[in-house]
């Protein structure tokens, strides 16, 4: 079974991920992503009759309220630390390219 993605689908995925691809790269990813889909298709052939669906691989089992924390305030970073890696900043805020869609 082969799940070949079209080039248009690859370009759509790249657009969603904000990646610019050269024609060569698009072709390379078309092959690689298709191979991944083929692999998933192979898994789908396994007979899962009688097996409960698993929503999540991470499950603390029977523990009471697993993986939760109490609603307690913990220290935050200082503003200077928070902004330390910002490419640009102004007035204590991250400065980014203009957001046009509003």
């Amino acid at each position, binding site marked *: 079974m082969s799940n070949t993605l079209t080039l248009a689908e690859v370009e759509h995925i790249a657009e969603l991920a904000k990646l610019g691809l050269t024609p060569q790269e698009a072709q390379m990813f078309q092959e690689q992503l298709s191979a991944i889909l083929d692999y998933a298709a192979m898994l789908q052939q396994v007979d899962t009759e009688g097996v409960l669906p698993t929503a*999540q691989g991470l499950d603390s089992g029977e523990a009471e*309220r697993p993986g939760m924390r109490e*609603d307690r305030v*913990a220290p*935050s970073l200082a*503003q200077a630390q928070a902004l330390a890696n910002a490419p640009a900043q102004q007035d204590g805020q991250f400065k980014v390219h*203009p957001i046009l869609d509003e």
Partner: protein
Amino acid sequence: MDYEAIIGMEVHAQLKTASKMFCGCDANYAAAPPNTHVCPVCLGLPGALPVMNRVAIEYVLMAGLALNCAIPEEAKFDRKNYPYPDLVKGYQISQYDMPLSRDGWIEIRLEDGTAKRIRIRRAHLEEDTGKSTHMGAYSLVDYNRSGMPLMEVVTEPDIRSGAEAWAYLTKLRAILRYLGIASGNMEEGAMRCEVNISLRPAGSAAFGTKVEVKNLNSFRSVRQSIDYEIKRQAAILDAGGQVEQVTMGWDENAGRTVVQRSKEEANDYRYFPEPDLPVVRARRAWVDELRARLPELPDARQERLIAAGLRPYDAQVLTEEREVAEYVDAALSAGQAAGADARSISNWIMGELFRLLKESGQDIATIQVAPGELAALVGLVNRGAINAAAGKQVLEEMFATGRPAAAIVEARGLAQISDSSELERIVEEAIAANPKAVQDYREGKKAAVGFLTGQVMRASRGKANPQVVSELLRAKLG
């Protein structure tokens, strides 16, 4: 042509937890300088891991119970992927196909007294985004809000008008406030609303093209935008056109919806399970414990007030805010001893007290008129000790000074004159002074008695019992 509007709503409400959803940053950031309530988790730094806030989960489960929802035994979180500068990780932790609660309903009561159920599709939990400010050539982002617990409540398309949407929002907010899990304050952005609207010919079962309206930040803008969209879409359909599937915003100043995004740019969120968070198991014992924590909710309170004698619509209005409902309860229980019936107390609160609250901008929880004193005032009016006009003056003074009703009546000499010998004298004077009206009355213009009653009321400086006066007048005029 006649159309039916098919409306669904999505309401986002920030939960009132102490810390954020997946980290310990202080959730009370309103007055804080930008980017001071942030940490590696809510900044989305590589390697940081989210941990669920138990209270936020419990709040949504409680909301689900209060909204008559089913609580599935398993719920999970998913990643909703989209690029936007205020979304630190490039995805929002939300819930896709296994929400914390689903399939509930809210009952709303319309102004004509009829009740209607709005079905709730789901109430789930997600994280809020940061806040961006647009400066023209660039934008600034503050992540203090990033990672705040946000509950999303989605209805089935059961709403039919702006008025129903208003009633739904009012009821939903009342429930959230009774639960004490959200402020529901739209002006402060703690509650946000999206609406989707389509029209279909009345009586048809098909659905028309859906238009979304986003960024609605007041009850009024929700109602106005819906009413506007219904008219706009009806005009397009009447002209033989087709409604476009778009996302709109509401321009408050212009009073109209404006296109924000067309269908071609629609998002493709590529949801997938959040691998860093375990499944949430809502075990029976836990859910029972939360159910036991639910306070008396607006519906139950409303039923109680209706049983006590209030009109259904009044009962709804008086239970919208927990503080008002508590005031009403206190006044009603004091009413029995004060000789004030429930319906009269409700009328005085809905009318005069609400007017005074509105004019002064005060909150019912902090006013000087104790509920027991309000009941005492209503009792004085009901027993005929003072008339209604004097009662209004007394309430105004109570509101301004906090003095008890009886003391004000005494000090201002407002006690009603029911003593008939004194009233008789005033009535006779009025008859003597107004021969024209007397003649009119005797010639069959029975309305003249109203004029004469007015004269007597004036002469008594408002203290006469109007009912007794008109009886006396009729007796004397023959």
